[in-house]
């Protein structure tokens, strides 16, 4: 039989994912150290300037440097998605753990609550949230966190319910481990195989939802740049200034694919909940 893959698949995934992710990370680092242009400076002369040595990604409809804005966008998008996931995971972790650990009526209440939130179209909840508290980076993070927490609650709940009756957990409770320590120290690390993919999907979903909210005018406030906001602003200039939409799209693509590749690589390498034995 001829082996077509000279490089193990996980290495390929990790390499490509690593390259993509590190591009985004480098963009973030660069944005702190060196910003080629003021991301908010409007220059009529540079309106829709195509990519050149001066503006490597070109300029947008206000003559703002797309490269600088993409850098700033990296910072904001990653910030929003990471903290959105952290909030969703914290809330989901608390609710899901309580529901999964205690079961019974507590479980029923928590699940009906999270079902109700899930039955809401996610973007709608974010919409109401932003309408009440106003748009802005922090409110978006909270809104996204609230929208996505039920799915994390489910991951935690299912995981804990599965693990709760596993023998090593019984063993731990026999030797006298208290519930909180049991959940935090003994159970959580074992949830990682389920959590890693849902974190990755979560990060991607947060970035995409932020873009969707920006599209509805609820996302990151102008004049700040997030990739979603840039895409929204650029959409009516696709034909005359395609660079305004291409570069933020690529950045988003790299971010999400990078995450996806890395998690895929990790899960193949460690055989987390997968086919490979």
């Amino acid at each position, binding site marked *: 039989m001829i082996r077509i893959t000279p490089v*193990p698949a996980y290495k390929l995934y990790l390499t490509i994912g690593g390259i993509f992710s590190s591009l985004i990370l480098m963009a973030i680092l660069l944005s702190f150290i060196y910003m080629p242009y003021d991301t908010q400076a409007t220059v009529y002369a540079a309106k829709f300037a195509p990519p050149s040595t001066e503006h490597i990604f070109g300029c947008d409809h206000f003559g703002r440097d797309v490269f600088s804005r993409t850098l700033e966008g990296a910072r904001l998008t990653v910030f929003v998605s990471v903290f959105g996931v952290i909030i969703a995971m914290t809330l989901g972790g608390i609710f899901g753990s309580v529901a999964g650990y205690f079961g019974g009526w507590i479980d029923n209440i928590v699940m009906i609550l999270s079902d109700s939130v899930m039955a809401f179209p996610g973007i709608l909840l974010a919409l109401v949230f932003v309408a009440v508290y106003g748009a802005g980076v922090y409110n978006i993070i909270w809104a996204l966190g609230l929208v996505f927490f039920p799915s994390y609650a489910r991951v935690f709940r299912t995981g804990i319910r599965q693990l709760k009756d596993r023998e090593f957990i019984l063993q731990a409770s026999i030797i006298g481990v208290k519930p909180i320590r049991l959940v935090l120290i003994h159970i959580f690390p074992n949830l990682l195989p389920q959590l890693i993919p849902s974190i990755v999907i979560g990060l991607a979903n947060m970035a995409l939802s932020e873009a969707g909210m920006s599209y509805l005018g609820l996302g990151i406030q102008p004049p700040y740049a997030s990739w979603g906001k840039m895409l929204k602003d650029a959409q009516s200039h696709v034909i005359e200034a395609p660079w305004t939409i291409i570069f933020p799209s690529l950045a988003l693509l790299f971010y999400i694919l990078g995450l996806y590749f890395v998690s895929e690589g990790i899960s193949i390498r460690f055989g987390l909940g997968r086919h490979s034995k």
Partner: protein
Amino acid sequence: MTYLSEPVLVVENLSLSFFDVNQNTSHPVLSKLNFDLRKGEVLGIVGDSGSGKTLTALTIAGLLPETAEVTSGRIMFEGKDLLKLNAQDRRKLLGDKIGMIFQEPLSSFNPLMTIGSHLNEVLTSHSKPQVPSDNADNRKSKIIDMLAHVGFTNPLRIYNAFPHQISGGQRQRALIAGTLLLKPTLLIADEPTTALDTVTQAQIVDQLKRISRSFNLSVLFISHDLMLVERICDRVAVMHNRRIVELETPKDILHTPTHPHTAKLIRSARSVRTPKDKQRIDYSDEHTPLIRVRNLSAGYNDSIFFGSAHHHEVLRDVNIDIYSGEILGLIGSSGCGKTTLTRVLTGLIPGTAGTISENGRLLSDFSNKKKSKRISVGLVFQDPYNSLNPTKTIGWLLEEPLRIHNICSRNERKKRVLQMLSDVGLASKYQNYLPHQLSGGQRQRVALAVSLMLSPSLIIADEPVSALDSSVQAQILELLYKINREKGVTFLFISHNLSVIRSICNRVAIMDDGKIIETGFIDDVFDKPRTLLASNLVKAETNYHPRSMRTIDSQ
């Protein structure tokens, strides 16, 4: 007589290796196997896990995973080299000429299909156009006949049942019926009884033996249990480290093992059964038992919705005494309430009525709903792969009981961990290992060590060796024994292997349907069982290992 018949299957110089895509390496799993199987013969293959016995079976059947590669040899079946056949021809042999049964009877069936439709598939996928009577009704009656043939008294019920609705033994028999439908010449049985309890094991093995005779069927019987193989096989091949190291009649193997590994297997199988001088325990009336359980009832609530609950009683009026220093055996068929009893004793679930006292002191009175205190108890589980937290190091796991009870200083804790590791026979380097880096036996040692860390007065060992290879089983039993004697730790030892019970326990309790139906000294219960169930159990056990029992007796 069987020696004279023609060979059905000849395996020559067979080697197999696995390719690891991630590591880009290839490693051998079978090396140069040579054996043959004659018509009507039952050939046993024994060996520890990882020795290659299951892979041998899969290679013959052509069910290897994609990453496996046959590197040399041939498999002649009825004059044809199986390895040279194309995929389709090979597939046609399966089910038709070659039947197979597997270890895990629940997962061997598609949960979404009835038993009947499974068996029907065997017929339809080999439909022979020359048979004019091949229609659904005929097929059904054929299947029902075969189900009756393998001993079902109500074959129609089995036909219409889903796999989860029938017991493990029934599933295994249904599987056998399926393989026999097209009257194959070769049956490959891969550990067909390992997951079953003693009584059912005996039934299935007898069934196989009978079928082999009546169909003149060649059987390749794979097992890790030397004594079981000895019972039904005409010849036995011992596999070790990817190779067949010995191929002889059972008698020759047992009496004159030529390979050191065979000898080791025999030794460990026997050592379990060698009666040891057991602890002398004071069972006099004035001596209060360590644990006294009186009129204990327990069960579960199936919470439907918001409180409206349905109580499901599992334990009913259980009375049991456990004396300090003894090893008390507990036997009972699966589902009789053994697990619930251990849960109540360890305090994982409360009882609904009854009392538990320790050394005469009342600890829990479930009838009064008084806040109960736990007895200090350790628990060792059956599955060593599941009983250790896979994300923690061994050292961490051993330290955890001391850490949470804040028993001593950090350094002292480390010292005690090392001490405990050496007590259970593990080198100190293992404290930095993760559970998956350990073998099954090593993990079971760690599990025992964890439960010993808090010096409990009682350790409940729930089938602690049944998942282990027989050579390892003996070592673990030995360790339990040692701990019992040297540390005076009391054990409640749950097992369905009566010979194990007999060899290490002082007393035995028999449980059925949530009640303890019989308690007594080992010899009393085994020689003069008072209840029907007890006598059935004992009978099955002696049937199961007749020759090995004799061997023990003759020594």
